[in-house]
Structure formats: C-alpha cells, structure tokens
C-alpha cells in the first residue's frame, strides 16, 4: 500500500516583507499627511511649497505610527524613526536641488555657442549676452588650481606619512598645526600671501593666487590622507617588513598603492575646497579680462569673474555672473566625475 502524496511546487514568499494591506496603510499615511499638509497650507500662515513640506513633514511620522499601531511598540518606534529619517533626507535634498536648479536655470541665460571659448577682452560686461565668454576665467582657475595642487598634494601626503607611518617626534605637533591651519580664514591666507609674495614681487600674479590656494588646500589634503593611511592594516606593514623591506619601501610599494584611490580622493577634496575661493584671489591674482597663461601677471578666475560681474549691477552682467556660477558648478562636478572614473580604474587593476 502506498500513499500518494501530491507534491506542490513550493511558492517563493518573503514573509519578512510588509503585507499588501500594510503597504496600502503606509501609502495611505503618506497621502493623508500630504492632504492634511495641504489643508494647513491653505488655512494657516504656512504658505508656499516649503510650508506644505513643513506641515507634511510633521504629520507624516504621526500618520505612519497610526498605520502600524496594531504591530506592537517596537514596530511603531521603528516606523516613526524611519519616517523621521526620510523627512530629514528630503529636507537636506531640497536646498541642494534648489541651488542646482536655480544656478542652471539662470546660468543658461548667459550661455551661447562660443561662451566657453570667448573671453571678455573686447566685450564690456554690460554688452549683449551673445558676445564675450568665460574662457579666460576657466583657464585662470584651472591654472591656479593646478599649480596649487602640485604644491599641496605632495606636501599634504608627506605630512600624512610623517604622522601615520614615521610617527616621528613631532607627529602630534604637526597634526595639531595642520588642524589649526584648516581653521585659517581664507581671507587671512590671502592677506598673508599679499603681504609676502605680492609685495615682494611688486604686483598681483597667478603665482600668488596659486600659493594662497595651496595654503588653504594643504590641511584638507593632509588630514584626509592621514585618515586614509590609517586604514591600511598593520598586518600588511608587518608582512612587508618581514620580507626585508625598509620602511620607505613599505610605504611606497605597499601602503600607497593600497590606498591610491583614497589619496586621489584626498586631492580632489582639496581641489573642491579651493576652486570656489574668492577672498584670497582678490588680494593675490586680481582679475584680467583676456585669456592669459602668464603666471607672472594677474589672471582671471571663475569666482572673481562672478564677483566682479555681480558688482556692476547691470542686468546682463548679472546674467554673466550666473553663467559663471553654472560653469564653476559644472567644473567641480566634472572634476569629481573624472577622479571617480580614475580611482575605480585603479581599484579594478
């Protein structure tokens, strides 16, 4: 006698996920919060988009809590926390998106086909927007940031190596000085370079601007590199020493290649720190309307281009300033993208 058992193929389920009904209740909580937020928006002083957001933001966690009230205290607390975090995330995203959208909307007004290749040599700032461009400022910013990077990235990494790897007698002093340096206001760095380099060589120059930027860049690079180098495990250094490597060989053959992408990130953070600096450049590189590659002369830069255009008060000049802001944002974005690609390629190898 045999018992015939009908075997059903197992159905894949995810019992740990929310049930459909629960998902519906959560969705309802969002909708209700939005509706109530809208009502508050209408009848009280909380007007406009931000008013709607504030009203909804405070109601959303409450409604979500009610939607889960039958699931026990732990779940309710968890849902409330999740809702608060979601609201906080949106709250941080709004200003960020707002800046981005505003800059690109207003900046694109000044944009035309040869905007990136023309300069302001023969164009007054108040002239029609199809004339002139921003090439001089892009070239100036790139040149000065490049020189500043060449100065401060090696010094920053060397300082980090001294602190983390060599652990020399002055390691804690250097760390303290680097930390103190990162608090130096940018205008003070500019004044310092003005009173030394500019007065010594008798005039504004791209060199002076680059040096001012490198002073601001150095602490960022050094501190980030320090954190990155600390990530390398002691085991790797010990193994390297056990293979008869000197400390210098260990650092350059094992430690630095291991964290190469992190060090590139440190350099990028340094660039991002200084690319938009205005105050120190006013006092060092000044401004120049034509495209120039001469580092001994004053040179244009994007922040100063924005600053000086805004100062004119002319409608077209203001539009040019927005254009400059857009290009500056785009440049930073492009640099970040480039280094991401570069460091991921290193990692893959």
């Amino acid at each position, binding site marked *: 006698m045999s018992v015939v058992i009908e075997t059903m193929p197992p159905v894949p389920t995810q019992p740990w996920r929310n049930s459909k009904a629960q998902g519906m209740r959560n969705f309802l909580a969002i909708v209700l919060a939005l509706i109530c937020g809208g009502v508050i928006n209408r009848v009280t002083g909380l007007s406009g988009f931000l008013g709607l957001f504030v009203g909804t933001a405070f109601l959303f966690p409450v409604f979500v809590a009610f939607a889960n009230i039958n699931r026990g205290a732990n779940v309710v607390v968890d849902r409330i926390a999740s809702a608060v975090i979601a609201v906080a995330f949106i709250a941080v995203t709004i200003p960020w998106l707002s800046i981005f959208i505003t800059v690109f909307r207003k900046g694109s007004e000044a944009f035309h086909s040869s905007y990136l290749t023309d300069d302001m040599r023969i164009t007054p700032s108040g002239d029609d927007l199809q004339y002139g461009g921003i090439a001089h400022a892009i070239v100036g910013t790139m040149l000065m940031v490049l020189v500043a990077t060449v100065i401060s990235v090696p010094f920053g990494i060397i300082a980090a190596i001294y602190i983390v790897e060599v652990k020399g007698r002055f390691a804690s002093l250097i760390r303290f000085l680097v930390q103190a340096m990162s608090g130096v206001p940018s205008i003070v760095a500019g004044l310092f370079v003005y009173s030394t380099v500019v007065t010594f060589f008798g005039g504004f120059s791209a060199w002076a601007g680059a040096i001012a930027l490198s002073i601001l860049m150095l602490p960022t690079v050094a501190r980030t590199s320090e954190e990155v180098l600390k990530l390398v*495990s002691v*085991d*790797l250094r*010990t*193994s*390297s*020493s*056990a*293979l*008869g*490597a*000197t400390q210098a*060989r*260990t650092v350059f*053959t*094992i430690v630095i*290649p*291991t964290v*190469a992408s992190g060090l590139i990130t440190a350099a990028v953070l340094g660039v991002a720190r200084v690319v938009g600096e205005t105050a120190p450049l006013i006092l060092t590189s000044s401004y120049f309307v034509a495209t120039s590659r001469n580092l001994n002369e004053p040179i244009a830069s994007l922040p100063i281009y924005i600053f000086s255009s805004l100062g004119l008060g002319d409608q077209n000049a203001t539009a040019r300033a927005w254009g400059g802001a857009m290009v500056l944002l785009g440049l930073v974005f492009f640099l970040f993208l480039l280094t991401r690609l570069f460091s991921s390629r290193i990692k893959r190898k």
Partner: protein
Amino acid sequence: MENNQIDSKVSETIRPTITAKVEIPLQRSKLHTEDLQVDKMVKSESGLETRNVHAWFDKHHALADISLHFPKNTVTGLIGPSGCGKSTFLRLLNRMHEFIPRAAMAGEVLYAGNDIYDPGVNPIDIRRRIGMVFQKPNPFPAMNIGENVVAGLKLSRVKTSNKEALIEECLTRAGLWKEVKDRLGSAGGSLSGGQQQRLCIARALALNPEVLLLDEPCSALDPGSTLRVEETIVQLSATMTIIVVTHNMQQAARVSDYCAFFLSDGGPGQLVEADLTTNIFSHPSDTRTADYVQGRFG
C-alpha cells in the same frame, strides 16, 4: 650588549628580579646544546640557535631564558598555551620584536654563527634571510597573484632575470602552482583563505630564505587547506630550517622533527622541555608536557 637593549633602564631594573622570580626549575632540554663551547664555525653549519634569550614589553617580562638549537633543515614545533611567549620568541628570531614600541630583549640569537643582535648587523638583511609567515593570510591588496609572489624582490630592490620562472618555482614549492597558473593576473584577495596562506608562503620563498618562521599558519584555515600547508612545510624542510608555532597538537606531531614546549605560570614564559617530537608525545620527561600534549590543560 648595551647597544642591543632598546631600553636599558628597563633591563637594568628588571633583570635582577627575574632570577628571583623564576620558580619553575628550568628543564635543560636534550635538544638544547650543552656544547656551548663549540666553535662558531661549526655553528654556522647548524641552523639557528638562541642562548638565554629574554623578552620584555615595557616592564612586562614576557619570556625568560630560552636556550634552543634549531638544526639545519629540520622542522621544530613550538607548542604551549596562549600567552606563553611562543610568538614573541618567534619574532625575536628575525628581529621583528623591535617593531613593538618599548620592547626589549636580552641574550643571543646565533645565526650562521653570529649574533643577529650585534650592532653591526643589518636587520633588513636578517629578515630577508629568515622569512616569516603570519597567522592571518595577508596578500598585498594592490598586487595580483604573480606580483605578490615577487613582492619581496620588489620591496628589497632585487633584480631577477626571469621573473616568470621564479614565480612558477615559488608557487610550485608552496603547492599552489596548479591552482593559480591560469590566473596569475587576478587579485591575491580573490583566492580562498588556504590558497592565500600558501601564496604568503610562496611570497616568503621568493627571497630564498634559509630559515622560515611560521606563526600559527593554519589557525585560520579549514582542515583541507591545513593539510596542504602541512605537506608544503614537510617538503620545504628538505632545503630549509622551519620553525612553526602551533596550537594544534596533531599538527605538531605530523610536521615537526623537534618540539619545544613553552609554559607560563603567570610570570614570564619559559621553556619546559625540548626534544624529538616522538619523545615529546610518547614519553616526555616533564609531567606538565605530558598533561599539555594529552590535552589535560591549555
């Protein structure tokens, strides 16, 4: 000897007290050379030797009066419970001990007849000739398998005429060649734990060391990988002196020619007994050794 004491103050203040502190009567090992008068030239033929070696970490006396002789082309197992100073002793043998801040030592470590702690000796050179493999396999992450094998050459700026042949030779000796010969370009981290450990052994072999120190090389490995590493150890012992720290009694019995049993009674770790492995496991002369190898403590 003053030059070798990293912190002479520590040594001076501690040293008189240690002789008083030693409560375990020191078993003179049979293996350990009674013939300390033997000419140094003879010693150079006969592997590695320690004479009355002590180790300190700051004020903590970690290891007391270890005298051992490791004959050329043999495997010696260092056994004993955790914290008895086996790893410390191992690190003393290729001058890795001094990487620990405030560490100190006393005694002599004779290699090729010379004290490796003599002021004129270059520790870099010692570490090239006395290789070491650690408990946790750690291939260099920025290098692929082939580069990992020859990393030691790159690190010590040694040029080789035929890198590929050397990579193959070292991987073969480490028992890994067949498994990785088609993927020398992939990352060392992509290997399994056991393969990584054999890669680390191959990496140590590339410098052609005369002595290989292994610090619990199998403690992170599964039984199959452990077996492979043990086979590798036995094969390598034909051409080099191997000293292996292990917590695994079966492993010590399987791979080693000699065994040294370390023990700490709360004070510094000491050598209880050193002998042929067969003697240690069949009729040890100290009851504590018998208790330990039969698993009654530790």
